[in-house]
């Protein structure tokens, strides 16, 4: 039994950031990198299936990106993933989330997993499409925003609870193998143990390129992308006013504003 967990190293904004001269992204100096928050939950879900199983379960994490993403893959290894795969080729630069889905599907074709987990979305781009497009390229069943999962290694069906709008939940039975996009809060992700972190630093990370995946340069990268960033900018801020004066005056003004909003 094998579970493939798709993860992403996401960028978060540092303070006082600047946009690049070409206005297509934030200046690299102002970006901080970390493992996507949703992926912590996907990995934990895979790990708990592995740990509660009587049979062997291999958890393999995969990510598409250049050298720097190895740090995030090592975090996953430190938490107990058995293997990590980094997929990269210069031709993949500029791939959109649909193309990433195509690449992950090609990895799945090689790895032959029994289940694929991905985060609902990444915190930087928030497309929410990578997991679902992977399923589409594989022609596998899929379920998005999974907030509960009942599944044992080897089962041919999984019972899932999906989170819907308005506080609704939906119970779904899904055929396996399938692709599930995992929601925050489905479990409590573990911390990597110190020993795990040190061991992970010495563990090998497998690398795959376009040729390993039988993909052509035309199928990935900026030219295959179905959407392109035209401009990134900071929109003009809305109206805000400071409440000045003595503390008592500020408190009184604040109380007035609250009353006004409440229609009193």
């Amino acid at each position, binding site marked *: 039994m094998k579970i493939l967990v798709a993860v992403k190293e996401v960028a978060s904004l*540092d*303070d*006082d950031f600047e946009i690049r001269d070409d206005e297509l992204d934030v200046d690299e*100096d*102002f970006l901080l990198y970390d493992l996507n928050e949703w992926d912590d939950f996907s990995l934990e879900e895979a790990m708990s299936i592995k740990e509660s199983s009587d049979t062997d379960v291999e958890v393999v994490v995969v990510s598409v990106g250049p050298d720097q993403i190895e740090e995030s893959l090592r975090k996953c290894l430190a938490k107990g993933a058995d293997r990590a795969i980094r997929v990269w080729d210069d031709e993949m630069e500029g791939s959109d989330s649909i193309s990433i889905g195509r690449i992950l599907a090609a990895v799945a074709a090689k790895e032959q997993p029994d289940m694929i987990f991905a985060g609902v979305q990444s915190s930087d781009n928030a497309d929410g499409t990578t997991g679902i497009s992977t399923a589409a390229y594989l022609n596998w069943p899929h379920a998005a925003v999974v907030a509960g999962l009942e599944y044992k290694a080897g089962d041919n069906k999984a019972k899932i609870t999906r989170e819907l709008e308005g506080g609704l939940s939906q119970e779904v039975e899904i055929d396996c193998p399938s692709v599930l996009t995992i929601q925050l809060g489905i479990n409590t992700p573990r911390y990597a143990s110190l020993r795990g972190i040190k061991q992970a630093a010495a563990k090998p*990370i497998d690398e795959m390129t376009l040729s390993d995946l039988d993909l052509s340069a035309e199928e990935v990268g900026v030219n295959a992308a179905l959407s392109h960033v035209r401009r990134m900018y900071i929109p003009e801020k809305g109206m805000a006013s400071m409440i*000045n004066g*003595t*503390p008592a*005056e500020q408190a009184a003004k604040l109380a007035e504003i609250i009353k006004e909003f409440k229609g009193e």
Partner: protein
Amino acid sequence: MQTLSQPNSVIALPETVEQLVSSAIALGDIYSAAAVYGVADQDQRNQLEHILCDKRRDVLKLGRWEHTPADVLQLFSQIEDKVVRIRLEKNPSTQTLTLNGLYKGEHNSSLISLIAKHHNASPEVLLKIADEENELEILRSLCLNPNSDEPVLLLVNQRFSSDFHGELSSHPATPAELLEVLYNSDDPYVRAAVVKHEHCPVNILKLAAADNDVIIRRHLASNKNLPAVYVQQLITNQDSSVRRATVTNMGVPVNMAITLVNDEESLVRRALAAREDLTSEVLVQLAHDDDHWVRQWAARNPNMPEDELERLSDDSNFEVRRAVARNTNASEQLLIKLSTDIHHWVRAAVAFHPKAGTDLLQKLSQEEDVDVLSGVASHPNTHPETIKLLSESINDDIRRAVILNPASSRELLIPLLEDPYYLHRLLLTRNKVLSNEDKWVLHDDPDPSVRFSAFSWFAKKLLHK
């Protein structure tokens, strides 16, 4: 398919500051370098500067980090980069000398505003800003900066007499003569702030006492130097907020405050019950109050008689019973009784009580509640075997309590040096029981803040060797 791997490095325990700095240089890590920069000699500093300033993104990262040592921030102030300057001017650790240097070359008003707000800005720089700047927001920042002294505030008032009355009337350094001027304001809030001010002249207090405005009276009642002659008038004021402000004022003698023990407003009685200087007799009266907040405050007071504490330990409200369990004068017998309370918060208060004995803590250690177990784990009276068991808990709070327990032994703490939660390892860098050898394992910790803390601790230790 290509396979990658990363090597491990081993650095020996340093015995001198020089060796420690060499270790940081060998690691090439910005956090370790920042921690030892202040203790390094000039040659080593040059090498550390190379590590610290090599990449702009590292400078930006450390420039905004609140733990970055002041001398590293001073180093960064030599770099010509507007974004770095913004971060230094915002960083609360940036020291006066660095800010003085930054101000000298600063022409950008939004950056001058950051210096005007900074709590380490010197009164000299603030005075210069008060003299040279015209933007109202910069000057408002000056009026809100606790470092602004009398000359700064007087100059702002002189240059912009009517714009900052609210801020000036509330600033602790505003002198009596300026307060006297401000009291002539038409704005009741400005006059109220003047009346509350520690430097408010007696003649203004007298005027305020004759004022019928509730805001003025409430602020007068809060004045720490309130003359006794006005207390009687304020304590019987019709407005409950004035009575409450009076009873909250610790400058008001307790014998006058207690006249409000039967006040019709529970908010007033709560404020009275929160006073620490109440006598047993008054506390007993408050212990029978209908309002559970009043009883709760009273139950916390160490002057509460034991028999009354005993009665309150049966109170229907669990917050009151918890207050009894937190009372420093609660007897061991009472703690034993409360250790079986139905509410876990009450039992947790018992577990944290300094008088809780070993047997009682042993009994509480059988519980499953995290708050109760955290109390047991942090208690110096807990049996070492019990602490050992708790140190293996899967709960972060419980293991942290073990680390914070002053009675935790070295043997017990050593396994926790590998705790998965970085904050726990960081706490152990400052632990007094662990040896240098024990702590040195943290020098190459995966978490940057742990490495910084470990190198900072060794720098301090070896410097004073």
